[in-house]
């Protein structure tokens, strides 16, 4: 089913309402405007920030890091996840271990990434990768497990190879779960890269945001957060677009 006009309108309405509420809270003083600058102020600040070439460079740096980490983590995570789901033995060995790795706050390991990669592009990408891959693996495993046995039997009867089964049966039937996983992975990835930038860096938007926060520059901080959120949401919408294109067969 596609988003109908009403739903699109409702969505826009909700977005507007959110911003209106934000503006109202701040303007009426229900929330201390020093702590929650109004939406309009924040957006104006955002406009100013985007004028600055340094901020644009930071955004570009962060975006490159994020995309690189994502492009590495997703295929690799998906492959490992797939292997785990396909191979009982491998699964029994690796699944709990991966789960434990997933459950530890990753920021503990930030120093180790500096140890291995130094401070810079590789370290950000490395940490972004590290923050993302576990969730990709875990989600892929689930997605694989939700595939219907009868569809696999059919493919098997036609002599589908491993790769063919993967791409022609697993992939389409896992798609909804997988796209959701991609969405969540992107958020982990983004957070990972930003954390790495906050931890140690020479540039990148995370570094800026950390500074604004410590300096109690709430407008800039919120504008920065809106900026990052906007990037993530754009990505979300991209996936949604893929979703509507690919899943129309679902009723």
């Amino acid at each position, binding site marked *: 089913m596609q988003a109908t006009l009403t739903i699109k309108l409702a969505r826009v309405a909700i977005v507007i309402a959110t911003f209106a509420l934000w503006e109202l809270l701040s303007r009426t003083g229900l929330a201390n405007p020093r702590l929650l600058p109004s939406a309009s102020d924040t957006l104006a600040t955002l406009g100013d920030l985007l004028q600055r070439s340094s901020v644009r460079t930071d955004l570009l740096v962060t975006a490159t890091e994020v995309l690189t980490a994502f492009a590495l983590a997703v295929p690799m995570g998906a492959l490992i996840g797939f292997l785990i789901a396909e191979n009982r033995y491998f699964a029994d060995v690796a699944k709990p271990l991966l789960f434990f790795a997933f459950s530890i706050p990753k920021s503990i390991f930030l120093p180790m990434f*500096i140890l291995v990669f130094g401070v810079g592009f590789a370290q950000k990408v490395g940490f972004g990768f590290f923050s993302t891959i576990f969730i990709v693996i875990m989600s892929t495993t689930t997605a694989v497990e939700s595939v219907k046995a009868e569809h696999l039997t059919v493919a098997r009867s036609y002599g589908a190879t491993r790769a063919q089964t993967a791409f022609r049966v697993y992939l389409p039937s896992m798609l909804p779960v997988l796209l959701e996983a991609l969405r969540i992975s992107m958020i982990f990835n983004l957070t990972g890269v930003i954390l790495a930038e906050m931890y140690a860096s020479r540039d990148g938007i995370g570094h800026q945001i950390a500074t604004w926060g*410590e300096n109690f*520059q709430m407008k800039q901080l919120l504008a920065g957060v809106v900026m990052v959120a906007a990037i993530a949401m754009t990505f979300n919408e991209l996936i949604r677009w893929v979703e509507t294109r690919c899943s129309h067969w679902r009723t």
Partner: protein
Amino acid sequence: TDTIRVGLPTKTYWPTTIAETAVRQKLFEKEGIKAELTVYRSGAETFEGMAAGAADIILDPPSLVSAGRKKGVMSRIVANAAMGNFGWQLMVPTKSTLEVKDLNGKKVGITAAGSGSDLLALWTIQDKKIDFTRVPVGGGGLVPNLLAGNVDAAVVYSPLSFQVAKSGEAKTILDYATAAPPNLTAGWIVLDKFAEAKPDVVQKAVNALYGAVQFMRANRDVTVKLIADLYEMPPEIAAMEYDNTIMKLETDGDMGAANVPAAVQLSLDLAKLGGLKDIVPVEDVISTKFKPVPTKP
């Protein structure tokens, strides 16, 4: 040419101003080296950065050097950067009537347990013979939680302290720059390995850094503008930062000076309050090999 990687504990902290001035005035170039500045999240992260080999010279308190030596990271302070907690203030919301002595049993915000602000809070407890709960709220949470009333007071660093004082949101009830006994709060630190392998680079680096301090003292307007730019704050607050912090910094940085060992010892003693157990003798923490010769701009 050699590159020296300078690790700075946060962006809006005076070491960044020093290093940036040195870069902008081309003092490193004049010494024949290149500098690469990296900003870390806090002092401990900076130290980890150096230990991981990502920074050659950093600014941190002696306590971390001491703790690091016990953990196999061999480094020393090569230059004395500051002998006081300039700009650090114990603040309460403007409307609050609390005095320092009234804080007994109250909640006081600090950035992180074991951090500089924690040490000052602990010192306050000891010195004023009161007891209060220290609540770590992170750098970003300090002022918001103070204003929201989640904490009754907070140990605020500069120039944030100046900023909120100026805006009238909070007021100072204790200025650590004057109240706390002078001790070596921060120095420039290098790994022993690096000092041995490239003593000349270290020497040149400290020359440039102290050249920057000299330059800043001599050029108020330029520096105030730089601070305002770097920290993204109004010039009047930048000026307060200049007057109350930059002007108080050590100008020669000589670790061989007579008052240094006692100042370092005091610094380590304070850190003990914060739970530091890994104390090494003062002479292991400092190096007197380098005496900065400020680079002329």
